């Protein structure tokens, strides 16, 4: 690839612009979480950590956060289990309708959340299942499943079959082969899929609006407050979550590089 330096520089500046576009709104959120005015407008005259103190004392934010963590972790576990199994089924066995199954699996992430939401709402209503965090978990697991499936499926497809055959030839049992050959090579794909499923679930609101009962997840709690306008306290909460997840991911990238 011999590209002129000019092309490279133009591309570089363009990319810089794209990243600015993606991050200026985040910068705005972080900035106003430290402003001592309640009004979210420039200029900022004084700085404060008051909103963080208020956030830490806010019981309803904690309840929302706790519910969101509960929903996201349960849904992610289910999605990871189902997605990994499904990827194996498609990869290992030829069966009638395999291609249909494989295409149908991705439908929940391809259809807009609102369709998933109203379909499940109608279904739970018809079946007489009461709405609550459990129905939210079912909804989230259903769109998390294809996320994990795709990651694991893509990795399995590139895994040379000869590795397993070699392992079997050397006398390993199927369980040993799985544990010592297959699993290590798909582990990072499973983790990546689970992380993405967790991310999508943690911030999900469209499906949640239709499927939740009285319990609010964090996005639902934020939504109920946004009707009266944004508060610096929400900025503080979002900044805190953003920092926590960025630190976690940077740490995990750092560790996985060391390993």
């Amino acid at each position: 690839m011999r590209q002129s330096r000019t092309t490279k520089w133009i591309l570089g500046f363009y990319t810089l612009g794209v990243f600015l576009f993606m991050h200026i709104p985040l910068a705005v959120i972080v900035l106003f979480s430290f402003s001592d005015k309640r009004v979210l407008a420039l200029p900022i005259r004084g700085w404060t950590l008051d909103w963080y103190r208020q956030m830490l004392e806010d019981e309803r934010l904690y309840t929302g956060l706790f519910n969101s963590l509960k929903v996201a972790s349960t849904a992610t576990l289910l999605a990871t289990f189902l997605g990994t199994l499904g990827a194996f089924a498609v990869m290992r066995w030829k069966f009638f309708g395999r291609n249909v199954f494989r295409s149908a699996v991705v439908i929940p992430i391809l259809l807009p959340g609102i369709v998933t939401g109203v379909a499940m709402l109608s279904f739970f209503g018809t079946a007489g299942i009461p709405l609550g965090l459990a129905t939210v978990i079912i909804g989230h697991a259903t769109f998390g499943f294809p996320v994990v499936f795709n990651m694991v499926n893509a990795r399995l497809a590139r895994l040379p079959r000869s590795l397993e055959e070699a392992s079997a030839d050397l006398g390993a049992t199927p369980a040993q082969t799985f544990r010592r050959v297959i699993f290590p090579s798909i582990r990072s794909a499973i983790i990546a899929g689970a992380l993405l499923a967790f991310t999508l679930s943690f911030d999900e609101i469209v499906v949640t609006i239709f499927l939740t009962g009285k319990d609010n997840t964090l996005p639902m709690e934020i939504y109920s407050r946004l009707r009266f306008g944004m508060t610096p306290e929400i900025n503080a909460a979002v900044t805190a979550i953003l920092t926590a997840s960025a630190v976690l991911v940077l740490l995990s990238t750092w560790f996985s590089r060391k390993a």
Partner: protein
Amino acid sequence: MSAALSFTAVEHQRRGKGFWATFLPPFLWMAGFYLVPLAVLLSLAFQKHEYVHIIQEFTWENFATALSPAYRPALIRTLYVASAVTLVDMVIALPAAYFLAFHAGRWKTLLTVLILLPLWSSYLVRVFAWRIILGKAGILNWVLIKAGILDAPSPMFVYNLFSMGLTLCYIWLPFMILPLVTAFERLPRNLLEASSDLGADGFATFRRVTLPLVMPGLLAGSLSVFSLTSGDYLTPALIGGPGDSLVGNIIAGQFGVASNYPLGSAISALVLAVLFVLMAILAKKRVLESF
């Protein structure tokens, strides 16, 4: 569990316990919690609605209402807003993903994390941030007045088709960039070198070698962005103008305040029909596997 995970060549043909153990759980989940709900939704679309009651009687009425002048504008608006957002995101994402895959060097991991970063904050708050930027008392107005371009704050930047479109492009951009970065990364470099050795200039190589090879990723990203945009109703509600509602707003209204499930289902069915046609076209190009 060990039976489920037997990996000898023979087993590939012979389905046994292993097949059922791996296939059944995801299949039953999908069927029970996704396909059945979709079927329930579709069946509602063909039932009568009177006051708040659903009458189990076959009718096309809901579809006629859905396509009537009361709802048609929102359907058409959704089609062109979603197409425009998809196109703009494509233009934004292609060069950036290319740069990331080929020239980012040691910054690549950091930049990839940065693409994901917005997804860890909050969708709602990010939409709201644009209100802080574009609003009448917003940052953009402040900057323009400081720069002497405007004399007084203008309300023209927010609560209209522009602010809605811009925010939609922003919100769904990561779903275009990520599959594109993956597609560029999987590109065999030697093909590009071969093309250049055979005398093709940079642009010809891009158009005739690179682009066709990343096409599945590009189409996968486009399908995601199109679908996410056409189902979004919180962005139009939070930052669009009063007349800018998309089909999602109407569906949400029918399943909410209006409590007319059959009409809401019929409109959802129309959305499903459009997306299924798109998917069927793209499935032929093996796009569905590159998500």
